[in-house]
């Protein structure tokens, strides 16, 4: 197995008595898009900052791209923080050039790539504008470009989709996939479950500074809880489908039914039983969505603190 792009072992970070990260173990496989999930205040941002060496851990250790010293590999990491900003009074191209240069590119190469990236995200015409004059979405694209412009091996994106319109959301998704194609590892921290399901191969769900669930998304969904059979059918008055053997519970409107399959039962048998009883328009076997799992695991417990404990 190749070296993980990021590995946290028994990681602890406390702020003035508040524990933000409580003995976290985490392994991000190289080359994957990895989802870091969790409610507000669960310790995601603290985990990221500690992993990247912005905070010094109070316990445990971090291996970033195989190195115990985050400073040694800083130019191989790209980071888009959740709360982000840019120099409002600086020209867009100059700004991107500067951010590329401090990530290890020489001035000329930084300037060349800055212009190429502005072109790529549709901001070539704004290269000479003051950054403060750009819309929030435009600035976000500049910030994303700044995080990947030096072609890092590990890219950490904290809530990258917030505030983007559908067109730019699509663009960003494509750009993230492009980075993976290039061979980079992407850590995506987000609340948006659709994005996680669409992009991430593996996830880690953090709650109160501890992982409550982690692994490959498909495995989690397959292995997690019960499957559901969703049916659309022509009603024939043969009684509710929720009575069928192997169905734990469900709902049936007479035209549509969602049937939760018992833990030990065979979903295929349930489907056959449905086919026998009614005329089917469509039938679908659903794994529980990540959102369902998220809600089940994290529950309705209110988050104790705001995201940023610092």
């Amino acid at each position, binding site marked *: 197995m190749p070296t993980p792009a990021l590995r946290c072992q028994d990681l602890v970070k406390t702020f003035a008595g508040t524990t933000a990260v409580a003995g976290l173990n985490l392994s991000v496989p190289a080359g994957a898009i990895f989802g870091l999930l969790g409610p507000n205040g669960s310790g995601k941002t603290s985990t990221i900052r500690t992993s990247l060496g912005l905070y010094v851990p109070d316990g445990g250790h971090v291996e970033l791209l195989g190195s115990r010293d985050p400073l040694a590999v800083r130019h191989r990491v790209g980071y888009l923080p959740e709360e982000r900003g840019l120099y409002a009074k600086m020209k867009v191209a100059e700004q991107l050039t500067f951010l590329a240069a401090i990530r290890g590119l020489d001035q000329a190469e930084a300037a060349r790539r800055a212009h190429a990236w502005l072109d790529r995200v549709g901001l070539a015409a704004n290269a000479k504008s003051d950054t403060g004059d750009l819309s929030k979405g435009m600035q976000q694209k500049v910030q994303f470009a700044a995080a990947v412009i030096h072609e890092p091996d590990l890219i950490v994106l904290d809530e990258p989709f917030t505030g983007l319109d559908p067109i730019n959301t699509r663009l960003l998704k494509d750009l993230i996939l492009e980075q993976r194609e290039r061979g980079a590892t992407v850590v995506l921290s987000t609340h948006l479950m659709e994005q996680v399901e669409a992009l991430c191969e593996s996830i880690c769900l953090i709650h109160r500074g501890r992982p409550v669930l982690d692994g490959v998304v498909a495995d989690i969904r397959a292995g997690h809880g019960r499957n559901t059979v969703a049916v659309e059918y022509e009603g024939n008055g043969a009684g509710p489908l929720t009575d069928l053997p192997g169905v734990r519970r469900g709902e049936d409107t007479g035209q549509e039914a969602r049937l939760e399959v018992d833990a030990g039962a065979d979903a295929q048998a349930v489907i056959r039983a449905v086919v026998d009883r009614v005329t089917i328009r469509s039938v679908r076997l659903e794994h529980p969505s990540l959102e369902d799992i998220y809600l089940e695991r994290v529950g309705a417990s209110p988050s104790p603190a705001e995201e*940023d404990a610092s």
Partner: protein
Amino acid sequence: MSPSQIAKVARREYLTRVRSKAFILMTVMIPILMGGYIFIMPLLFTSSGTDELRIAVVDAGTGLAPALAGQLAAIEQPRIDVAEQAVVPDDSESVRRPYTEAVLDGSLDGYLVLTPDPVIGAGSRYYARETGNPVMLRDIERAIEATLLDRLVAGTGVDTERVRAWQRFDLEAVTVSDEGETEGGFEAAFFSTFALAMLLYMAVLINGQGMAMAIVEEKSSRLIEVILGAVTATEFMTGKILGVLGSGLTQLGIWVGALLLGVLYAAPMLAMGPDLADFDLGAVLSVELILYFSIFFALGYFLYSVFFATIAATCTSTEELGQAMFAAVLPMVVALMSSFYVIANPGTVATRVLSLLPPFTPLVMLARVNVLTPPLWEIWLGIALLALGIVASGWLAAKIFRYALLMHGKRPTLPELMSVIRAG
């Protein structure tokens, strides 16, 4: 610490400072204002708009009018044309009315009224629409003095020229030091100390404040998180300070250049002015002084930039920064205040101690150099301590930077900072 990372941060900071409107305005305006003050103001005073003044001499019983008219005729700039001499009974308003009317309708520029005085022979008043030219008033005053003196010594055999030379007696102050003798005393010291104080104060305030605001902006916009992902807090701080130091040295270079040009080209011009021939710019501005000025400016600027950066790192908003900035400027204000004491008491123990305390050294030591040149070892001890002070405060600042840069919402308290510094 990686020099190339520091250089990149410094480059951005330098370019941002140097391109700022405040920097350009100040760099250009200071030489213009100073040049204006030194060269243009005296010229304005000496060459009052008109070349010739038409005045009347109105004598209310002194009998001095003809003699005074002769003295006034000797004045060259502006030439004074005594259009009328009159003897009147007194200087009451009704008597003066025709002359006042002549002034108001423009047929006269002004008139002098002479009244008897039992002690010195005459009192005099000058009535005119424009009385604001001090050089012309002084010329008229001298003419009256000369007239009175002539009458006083008439027939005694005393040479009036000798008396007038005696009147112009001037005590010359010469500063004696190991390097020799320098002319010019309090005024020269005051001038250059005050000039350094103002330049340092303004340069630090404008550039340092610009940098401090940028740091707070980086903190509050959270851009700092991106930057600290790429450069360490120490590299970031060092780059910031070097960038702002570069902008200060650029400014200093431009100013010193402008000053040298001024001395080379404008000073000869200046010497042609009638009353400024005795103003010796060379006595005020020696090469040695410019050298010390540059050293103390650069080091003082450096030290205060560190102060500003440190204070900015602990602030979370520009409002907080505005209040906290006072703490950084305070030592400079104290130094400026105490330099008045220093100029008057250059040799006291208090002065010597003060000049060796780094925040005060730039202004106080320069004042000492100006007034009573201290032993060379003391100057260089001051410079060395100042450099040491910069290193020490930079070391403290780096610790505070590492701790405070990622803090938002609340400022670190002093006890927190102390524990950070102790923790190492």
